[in-house]
């Protein structure tokens, strides 16, 4: 297969499949098309892996023209949305994009030059990692959506199915994301960036409730700020370099950053584009659009949080890391670390399952952004490993949240009490997913561990990391506790789920273990080259199946002449995990001989399977237990003012420094 075809499949096939599912309004056919697209995309991503690094520019200039036209079509659509919803922020930030862009292309006469920027696509290991994450995990989520949307509409009792429209945007999203991570030409990157914003808006607003439309519009205007910043960055690069389009490709910007040929003028555009990425990655104070995205059907959340959209944001930040000025890097690291900390603390007070997941996503994206800001070999390795593991675990968790929602028809954590008895299978997968988010031996913790070993160069970020990891443990454990809190039921049975649910769930479940155990080979064969696209790779962190970090990996330990910075024995820890969790399930002699009622001061009103007790006047009272949410100390009302103030201040300081240095 030629590269041209591979790119066409990665970017255009989802679009074509989207149009097909939009036209053919038939449940089974739609399922078939989605599954076939998913399989083709997965196979195609493996072809990318085998193809390796390359560049590509389409022969015909027609594509450049088409993209320009579509750019304006989208921006005009945003203006229409702003006007029809009377949402002036949407309108404002659409205008701030379309007016400078039009002036630049037609007023300043740059349009022909802009259409001839090459190369259009650069395929390197980092983009291949992203393509694989998007194609594999994104496709699994689309498969999951087939049945989910059917149940969703069944429950809502819609007269006319809106599924064709939903799947059009959902499947097309994957194509836009693939285009985004492969594009090198900034104009094209900007185009794909806008397409993801558009898809995101359409999917969030899908249910057409007032809340859904409002939250969709919020996602739209917040990401439009990012778009504006990107337009500004491009124009700055164009005009400061004597009206030339030389620096309008990512590869040239990075090259200029590496050899310092542009000096301080590069700092502002890089900071602007980094800002764009951080908005898309929902960094504080822009976390609200991602939280609002929770109103959408769960597959949308799963897609936005795990493999697409927010990952585009962190991808851009990591991609630009080589061009970071050290001061900019430190500021990005502190912004990211602050987001990690604030989101983890806010997650403690959340009562809705999906909101906890959302805050956890924001926190982990903060961690990844901070790693990119630290910008050493160790931290970039941590960032890319975190992207992969976060996509798997968070994808799984959102699918679990969706499955739970369709069993209890609620998203509230309080309603999930005793789920371990009601739906043992779903709970088992959910618990594994949650454990994989924050505990050893799983990959997410490995990433966090690597990040902490690298973070000492920015001590403020290090301290925020530490506080955030402690808060992370608390909010996950709290939720896990609600799921586990059961009154034993006699004669329970395992629930049956549709194949469209179980295949993605078990695939991701297997992925957690496969990638978790094989993290060292994964790093060596797959991630290390991607790290090499960002920083110079000098050290081997993997030895056999284990991760060993040599002393030369950080400046402090190199100075002190330390041989070994840290070690992470992967295999042994998985064996420990197996002993800890699996063995008790298998060893009959450890099992309780008998279940007895809980201690209620001797006043329980029956056997093990009742949770009633004799209250006042011998009335039977049901035992009710609620979780702690620390509303006074950790709630949004109590903290948001501070969070916004600090986050905005951090960005202001960042841009203050950048502008100060570059002028």
């Amino acid at each position, binding site marked *: 297969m030629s590269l041209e075809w591979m790119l066409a499949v990665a970017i255009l096939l989802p679009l074509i499949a989207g149009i097909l599912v939009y036209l053919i309004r038939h449940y089974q056919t739609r399922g078939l098309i989605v599954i076939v697209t998913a399989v083709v995309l997965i196979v195609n991503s493996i072809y990318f892996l085998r193809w390796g690094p390359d560049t590509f520019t389409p022969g015909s200039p027609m594509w450049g023209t088409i993209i320009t036209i579509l750019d304006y079509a989208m921006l005009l659509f945003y203006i229409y949305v702003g006007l029809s919803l009377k949402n002036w922020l949407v309108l404002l930030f659409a205008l701030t994009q379309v007016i400078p862009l039009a002036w630049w292309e037609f007023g300043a006469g740059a349009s022909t030059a802009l259409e001839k920027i090459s190369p259009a696509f650069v395929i390197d290991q980092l983009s291949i990692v992203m393509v694989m994450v998007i194609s594999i995990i994104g496709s699994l989520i689309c498969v999951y959506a087939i049945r989910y949307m059917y149940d969703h509409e069944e429950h809502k009792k819609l007269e006319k199915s809106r599924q064709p429209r939903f799947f059009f945007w959902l499947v097309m999203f994957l194509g836009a994301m693939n285009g985004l991570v492969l594009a090198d030409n900034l104009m094209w990157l900007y185009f794909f960036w806008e397409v993801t914003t558009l898809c995101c808006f359409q999917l969030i607003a899908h249910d057409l409730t007032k809340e859904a439309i409002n939250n969709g519009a919020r996602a739209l205007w917040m990401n439009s700020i990012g778009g504006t910043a990107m337009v500004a960055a491009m124009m700055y690069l164009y005009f400061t370099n004597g009206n030339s389009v030389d620096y309008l490709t990512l590869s040239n910007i990075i090259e200029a950053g590496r050899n310092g040929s542009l000096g301080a003028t590069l700092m502002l555009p890089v900071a602007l584009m980094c800002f764009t990425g951080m908005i898309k990655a929902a960094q504080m104070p822009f976390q609200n659009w991602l939280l609002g995205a929770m109103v959408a059907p769960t597959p949308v959340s799963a897609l936005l949080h795990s493999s697409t959209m927010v990952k585009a944001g962190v991808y851009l930040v990591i991609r630009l890391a080589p061009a970071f000025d050290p001061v900019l890097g430190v500021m990005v690291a502190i912004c990211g670390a602050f987001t990690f900390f604030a989101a983890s603390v806010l997650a403690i007070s959340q009562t809705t399952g999906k909101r906890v997941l959302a805050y956890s996503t924001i926190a982990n994206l903060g961690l990844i952004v901070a790693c990119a800001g630290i910008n050493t070999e160790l931290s970039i390795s941590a960032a890319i490993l975190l992207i992969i593991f976060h996509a798997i675990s968070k994808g799984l968790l959102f699918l679990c949240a969706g499955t739970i929602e369709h069993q209890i028809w609620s998203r509230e954590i309080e309603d999930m009490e005793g789920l371990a008895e009601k739906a043992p299978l779903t709970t088992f997968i959910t618990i594994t997913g949650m454990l994989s988010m924050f505990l050893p031996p799983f990959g997410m913790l490995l990433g966090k561990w690597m990040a902490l070993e690298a973070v000492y160069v920015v001590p403020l970020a290090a301290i925020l990391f530490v506080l955030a990891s402690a808060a992370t443990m608390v909010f996950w454990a709290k939720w896990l506790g609600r799921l586990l809190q059961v009154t034993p039921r006699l004669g329970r049975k395992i629930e049956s789920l549709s194949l469209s649910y179980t295949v993605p769930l078990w695939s991701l479940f297997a992925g957690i273990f496969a990638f978790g155990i094989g993290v060292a080979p994964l790093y060596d064969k797959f991630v290390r080259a991607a790290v090499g696209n960002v920083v110079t790779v000098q050290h081997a962190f993997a030895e056999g199946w284990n991760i060993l970090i040599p002393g030369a990996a950080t400046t402090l330990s190199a100075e*002190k002449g330390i041989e070994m910075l840290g070690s992470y024995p992967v295999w042994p820890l998985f064996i420990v995990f197996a002993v800890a969790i699996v063995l008790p399930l298998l060893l009959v002699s450890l099992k309780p001989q008998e279940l007895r009622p809980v201690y209620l001061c001797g006043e329980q009103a029956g056997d093990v399977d009742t949770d009633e007790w004799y209250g006042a006047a011998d009335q039977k009272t049901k035992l009710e237990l609620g979780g702690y949410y620390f509303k006074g100390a950790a709630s949004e009302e109590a903290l948001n003012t501070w969070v916004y103030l600090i986050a905005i201040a951090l960005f202001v300081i960042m841009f203050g420094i950048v502008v100060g240095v570059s002028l």
Partner: protein
Amino acid sequence: MNPVWIVIIAIVVAPFIGGLLAGIDRKVTARLQGRYGPPLLQPFYDFFKLLGKSKIATSRTQYVWIISYLVFMVTCLVFLVLQLDLLLLVFLLGFAGVSFALAGFSTKSPYSHFGANRELLQILSYEPILLLAALGVYAQVGSFNISEIFKQQTPLLTSLWPIFIALLVVLTIKMRKSPFDIATSHHGHQELVKGIMTEISGPYYALVTLTEWYELVLVLGIISLFWANPLWVGILIAFAAFILELFVDNINARMTGGWMVRFCWAIAIVFCVLNILYLYFINMKGVL
């Protein structure tokens, strides 16, 4: 020595040390209260008696988490004696703590439930201190590996004494001593019924006791790292810290969970943070 032997010896010997320390604890506490106190080997009698009780439980999943608590605590100890990564050790200790909290959560019992929630508060209090201690060790030594600490000629205590003080707070929390016996408490205190331990009975209680002995040895072991060369000084320091805890326990009342979190974040963590920042600037001076 062969690492396998080291691991086996550590796993076998640690409970005896932990049990003896628990015995000393009860004897000293009794003497402080003007009582004669139980025999020194009383914790072992309690342990074996509990093993012989019938295995009853209130939920099907609780014992899984208790065993995982034990297994991960033993793993932490193995990490310590094999002198592996300190940071990872702290994360593993975190898993052990979370497992125990989940054991408390996995039954619908009000006492167990609030005990588990308080256990989470304890994690929120001590986990950052331990992580910051690992970072502080890195700032001083330049490595997260415990083996590198033993290669240091100057003891860590000289430059990391604020972190050492913060670790004493962790020791109090981990030993479940007043003023931090929040989630559950030891003998003689019944106000919480038994907190997180309420629904854990018989052999499972014995497993938790065993884990606590491992935990005690582990935390004291981490404290002894602060004077690793020669190690016997470190062990003496750890023992002195242990005895100090007994006095602290007997002259304090239990405080609330919120007070514990505030105390840890506002005082103990600030100690750690100042220590790390100081070392950072010292290191920076070396670079400049």
